[in-house]
């Protein structure tokens, strides 16, 4: 009796419980795997969206920066051109009247303009009506931010120069 055939015998209670537990665990694991898969899919979706949004914003920024850079480049070119013109004038004035050119904008290199080029192709005026002092006055006032009208007024009152256009055009460029 101790060695009875147990194949046809009913399953013991412990075995049946273990199987049930295994089934439950298996189902739970399957459910968890599905949750994880869903979460991963969602995360991939979010990442995808975020990437698209970032790409869109970056493209917009790049366009804006490019526009700004173009505008700045134009302004810098304009400033460079004016600075070169002023420095060239100062170099000539230094030769005419002595003294040193101003250090403001000293990091810029002066271009070499002939007197004719400065004066719109005409020979430079050297008469008493446009002394070097008047041109230095006009140049310094322009560098310090004075307007065309303010400089013209000073040239008229300080130097009795009625036709200030040639000096002002040489320094500030022709009036628009």
């Amino acid at each position: 009796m101790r060695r009875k055939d147990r194949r046809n015998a009913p399953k013991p209670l412990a075995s049946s419980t273990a199987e049930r537990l295994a089934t439950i665990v298996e189902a739970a694991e399957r459910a968890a795997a599905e949750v994880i898969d869903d979460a991963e899919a969602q995360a991939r979706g979010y990442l995808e969206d975020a990437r698209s949004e970032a790409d869109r914003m970056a493209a917009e920024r790049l366009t804006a920066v490019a526009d700004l850079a173009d505008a700045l480049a134009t302004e810098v070119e304009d400033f460079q051109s004016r600075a070169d013109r002023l420095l060239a004038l100062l170099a000539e004035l230094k030769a005419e009247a002595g003294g040193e050119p101003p250090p403001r904008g000293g990091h810029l290199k002066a271009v070499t303009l002939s007197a004719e080029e400065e004066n719109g192709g005409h020979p430079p005026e050297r008469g008493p009506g446009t002394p070097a002092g008047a041109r230095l006055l006009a140049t310094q006032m322009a560098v310090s931010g004075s307007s065309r009208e303010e400089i013209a007024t000073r040239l008229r009152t300080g130097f009795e120069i009625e036709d200030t256009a040639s000096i002002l055009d040489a320094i500030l460029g022709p009036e628009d």
Partner: protein
Amino acid sequence: MRTYRRAPVDFVRGEGPLLWDADGKEYLDFLTGISVCSLGHCHPAVVAAVQEQAGRLMHVSNLFYTEPMARLAERLAESSLGGRVFFSNSGTEAVECAIKVARKHAHMRGIAAPEIVSFEGDFHGRTYGALAATPGMAANEALGPMLPGFRSVPRDDAAALRAAVGESTAAVLIEPIQGEAGVYPISDEALLAAREACEESGALLILDEIQAGLGRTGSLWAFEQTPVRPDAIVTAKALGGGMPIGACIAGPAAAEVLEPGDHGSTFAGGPVATAAALAVLDVLDDPALLRRVRELGAELRAGLEALDGVRETRGRGLMVGVGLEDGIDAAAVGADLLERGLVVNVPEPGSLRLLPPLLVESSHIERSIGLIGDSLLGLSRA
């Protein structure tokens, strides 16, 4: 010591263009501590810079570098003549430095007894070197003997200046606009004569911009509205926004003249004063502000010239002298204006001097013109 005839007012607070006395009375300040508080009283940027620097580092002496001092020297030189900068505690000390530079520069050219030429009416300071270059006060024999090697010529006399400058001249030291004398701009002709005479003789042209510089005339430096470039300038007053600081800026022709041991100062260029000056320059070195100074100056002068009792106005930007008609006691007008709540100065009989804050508004300009008009009217009836 009783070195000043002080007005009977005890000021206790200031903000922008306004002052208040101990009784709570409000004043519109059109003197700004003689052009020191050009940004108005207690400008927040200056106050913050002083507070921040005072809490970080106050003094180490000139035996060492400090960042605010180095930055300020670079900024002053770059904005004016290039070259080098010597810091001082006041305008008169900046002039002392300029005199040393001029004399040593002359000795280097073989001049044994160098001379400095100024205009009558110039005011350069009260220490003995600067005093000797200030003809009006150097004549005070009770303070003699004066430092030798100084001479003067009549104000704005180009021919006399040319004649006075010769082989022994070390420098022409002049104010581009005479402030203490009553606000008298030097003519373009006289300035050009000074420049040319210096070129011919090898002397230095030194402009005293202690009062006229730093935006007061509508450009950062007064010489920028003249037909000359000086070899050196001296500045002070508005530089510290209320903190005591001055500077001698020597351009390339004079930058290397002084060497270690030639000059010095214990406190000069200290971190707090230089930090304040950097804050001042941050505000002042602004084309829009400087243009506004020129516009408001024109507005002020036009309004004043329309008043009965005003003979003329002089100056540039917001540095304005007001010439009163003969018979009007300027001192009485000044005292009456103080009563009415407007602070001005009377630099000479017959003139008022107006040095309003550079950040003043049109409404303040109108108010000042109204008060001056009322005062002139009231006194003419009295």
